[in-house]
């Protein structure tokens, strides 16, 4: 369904404020200035055992001016909708650039900010792909659906509690810069989750089973049958949870793993997505999120993983959470290779990093999560490509004598250079002689990035490909969150370390 940009957004004095801010920045000597007006509406509902336990409806609205002045960055933001106020914010941004220049000079540095060239995109609009804007659906319809799902699970044997939640976002951005690019965009996304809890009151043991439906750049239709089989998944959860409660604790050791896309997306996010952010690799996140083992000198050389490993960065994937028409520096969305045939061949960049490293044009990875934040280099949709004609999940399992099939994400952690990681999941199925043989509990897998991807023996076909993702990827200081998708097929890994989390806890 074709949509137009929300009229209540375009009715705001976007261009007038931009003109006032950019004119003031120019008059104060800024070499470059960009103006970004954002309205981000986020609404959330939580139900506990089918009863409302919290809701919120938050709209963040304002604008930001970023300048390059005297070779230094300056940034300021404001909320007052007057031309004078916008010009004043531009002045504050220039003042911050001057403060930066003083500090840089005091340090004896000659570093100057320069930006990679980008063609001018004048008066462009872009809207993400969805059918029904969730903000046009009555709130009571949303909570009724969550309550009905919760009640259905609560009625099942062995389910003690059910937590259900829905988060919906509509993001509107207007961008203008001194080069002449002007873009107006609208994105919609949502994240539904349902989790069932079982409690054995005698032993005190408990466990949970959560839906594995990913967040999506879709509309309300996602909850009513388009893009995910909610009925099928909810029907299976009570039995899966009951089986998990009875499941034996895993024996620690090395296992072959068949990893479902519902789990593998997060491993990709942590070990490839963040590792191929060039600002990290260069040290611009060193004090906070960290750096990367995939340093710039290894471009075109680093053997990241097995030869069938092909990973792309993509800002154009339909329904992707990081999909845009233009990034927050006015760069048109693109798709490119990060890993090809197992070798590192690309990075994610913004305009400054692209210029600094001589890579030419930025591939459009600048993003700010709110009008009060400066755009930073953020992740594109980073996805592992399936193999044409590749195996089904069943066939991949069929090739394993003793192993574990991992489904759904749960706990995740990786070191500050993206070597050492540990993940858990929602469901771990024992594989014996090519067949699933019931669930296991207390499982975590631990590996080093290149060892793990080097142990990938087979990549599934397009029929196994699923676009997973997250709403809440954190980066930068001040901290920002971004939504990002990761597509992948099911894949087979040989000889991965499995921990027993009970033993890790000293029990």
């Amino acid at each position, binding site marked *: 369904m074709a949509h137009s940009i929300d009229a209540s957004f375009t009715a705001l004095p976007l261009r007038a404020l931009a003109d006032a801010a950019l004119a003031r920045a120019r008059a104060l000597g800024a070499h470059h200035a960009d103006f970004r007006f954002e309205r981000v509406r986020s609404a959330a509902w*939580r139900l506990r055992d089918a*009863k409302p*336990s919290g*809701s919120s*409806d*938050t*709209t*963040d*609205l*304002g604008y930001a001016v970023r300048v390059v002045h005297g070779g230094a*960055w300056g940034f*300021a*933001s404001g909320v007052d*909708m*007057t031309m004078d106020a916008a010009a004043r914010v531009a002045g504050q941004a220039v*003042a911050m*650039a001057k*403060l*930066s220049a*003083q*500090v*840089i000079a*005091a340090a*004896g*540095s000659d570093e100057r900010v320069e930006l990679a060239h980008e063609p001018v995109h004048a008066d462009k609009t872009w809207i993400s792909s969805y059918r029904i804007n969730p903000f046009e659906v009555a*709130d009571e319809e949303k*909570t009724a659906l969550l309550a009905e799902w919760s009640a259905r699970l609560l009625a099942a044997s062995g389910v*003690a509690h059910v937590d259900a939640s829905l988060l919906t976002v509509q993001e509107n951005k207007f961008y203008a810069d001194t080069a002449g690019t002007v873009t107006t965009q609208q994105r919609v996304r949502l994240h539904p989750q349902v989790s069932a*809890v079982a*409690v054995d*009151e005698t032993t*005190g043991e*408990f466990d949970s089973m959560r839906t594995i439906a990913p967040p999506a750049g879709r509309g309300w239709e996602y909850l009513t049958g388009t893009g995910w089989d909610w009925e099928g998944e909810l029907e299976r959860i009570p039995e899966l949870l009951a089986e998990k409660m009875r499941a034996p604790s895993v024996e620690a050791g090395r296992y072959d793993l068949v990893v479902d896309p519902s789990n593998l997306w997060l491993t990709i996010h942590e070990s490839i997505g963040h590792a191929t952010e060039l600002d990290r690799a260069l*040290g*611009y996140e*060193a*004090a906070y999120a960290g750096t990367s*083992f995939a340093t710039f000198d290894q471009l075109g050389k680093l053997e990241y993983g097995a030869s069938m490993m092909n990973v792309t960065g993509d800002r154009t994937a339909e329904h992707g959470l990081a999909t845009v028409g233009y990034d927050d520096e006015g760069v048109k969305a693109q798709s490119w290779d990060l890993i090809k045939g197992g070798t590192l061949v690309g990075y994610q960049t913004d305009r400054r990093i692209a210029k600094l490293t001589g890579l030419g044009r930025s591939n459009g990875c600048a993003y700010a999560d709110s009008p009060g*934040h*400066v755009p930073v280099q953020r992740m594109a949709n980073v996805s592992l490509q399936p193999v044409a004609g590749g195996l089904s999940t069943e066939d991949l399992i069929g090739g394993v004598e003793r192993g574990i099939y991992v489904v759904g994400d749960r*706990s995740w952690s990786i070191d*500050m*250079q993206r*070597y*050492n990681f*540990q993940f*858990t999941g929602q469901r771990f199925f024992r594989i014996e002689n090519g067949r699933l043989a019931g669930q296991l509990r*207390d499982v*975590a897998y*631990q590996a080093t990035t290149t060892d793990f991807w080097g142990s990938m023996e087979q990549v599934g076909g397009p029929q196994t490909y699923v676009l997973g993702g997250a709403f809440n990827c*954190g980066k930068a*200081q*001040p*901290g920002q969150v971004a939504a990002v998708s990761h597509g992948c097929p099911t894949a087979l890994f040989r000889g991965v*370390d499995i*921990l027993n*989390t009970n033993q*890790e*806890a*000293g029990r």
Partner: protein
Amino acid sequence: MSRSSKPYEIVERALELSSTDGCMVIADEQSSANLRWAGNALTTNGVTRGRTLTVIATVDGAQGTASGVVSRSAVTADELEPLVRAAESAARKSDPAEDAQPLVGDAEPTVGFRDAPAETSSAVFARFAPALGEAFARARAGGRELYGFANHEMTSTYLGTSTGLRLRHDQPNGTLELNAKSPDRSRSAWAGVATRDFQDVDLADLDAELAQRLGWAERRIELPAGRYETLLPPTAVADLLIYQLWSAAARDAAEGRTVFSKPGGGTRVGETLSPLPLRLRSDPHEPGLESAPFVIAHSSGDDASVFDNGLPLSATDWVRGGRLEHLVTTRHSAGLTGLPVAPGAGNLILDGGNGRSLEEMVAATTGRALLLTCLWYIREVDPATLLLTGLTRDGVYLVEGGEVVGAVNNFRFNESPVDLLSRATEAGRTQKTLPREWGDWFTRAAMPALRVPDFNMSSVSRGV
């Protein structure tokens, strides 16, 4: 409505516009200034101003009271009434809220409720910014690279309710994180401080400490995974115990789904968690760590309720004498669990140690121990044991015979803070500290260092 409009007037006007059974209005006036740097050079900076207005409308019905919560930033005069109506509409269309309680009343108005909000600006860095430039120059000359972030925020919160509450709280919040690396980035050291105004920040002292630590790391020692006697510095203890506090919702425990659940039903309140006489507490009036003295809840959740807005907060012992004393409750969850009302507060303090500084604990180490700098990427592995995983970062040092003898590789750990309290053999002197992992959300902490005889370093991390 321009920014010159007074927040209390906005609160009063929104309450006047309210037409439902109850209404709470929260105006948050926020300003911030920040500097960020990498490789001895400033990278980004910014100043921000913002206002968020939250309206919580309540509607009584035969089945109970429903609530509607709507927040907007940059609210204009034209948008004030639509905002109130949106909250009322949400309440009218909602099912009764499970956490519904009578709105809080009967509190004296805060002095200064009608005053303008407190603000920060780049001027807060007037002394710090030049010192930072000098630190860059000094680091460059000394063969070090400095990375880090300085941030100062001021939030003035105005709370008004239809039951007559008129409360205000000003919360300054400053943090400095300083990271030094050798030019080849094979050695790394970190220091962080929380501050209310940057007047007490001594950059030269911190830089000197980092230079010393990089010096320690010139001797590199490789150690395998395993269980080691470990000295956890205050920042690491804070990160672990903050997560424990976040996992201490009484209702979840009573329902049998947390580490604080008792097998067979009920909670572990009253159980001894540590043989040491430790006291874990929150106190909104703790000197230097002051936080809001009343509940400010923008939405309801497992450990907070919008209906408790304005409820006075007092000192609460979560653990006293090593014994679990309280779990986090709202008025609603207190009623459900039979536990006393104990809302969460904005600071966390662990005391009851022996008064030794970390340096004295190092000197008192008779055998071999690991001295950590901080923890990173902490995530929950198993809620039943509160098993957390994460990594050491920016310096693990080997202590032998009471002295640091070199730097060790980093590790991934798997540990539960609840279990650590039971195994710790020594707690040192409590001091203000900046939690490294959770510093984006929780900055007001005071902790001692802990000595743990068998900390579980699950695997080696090559990351530096």
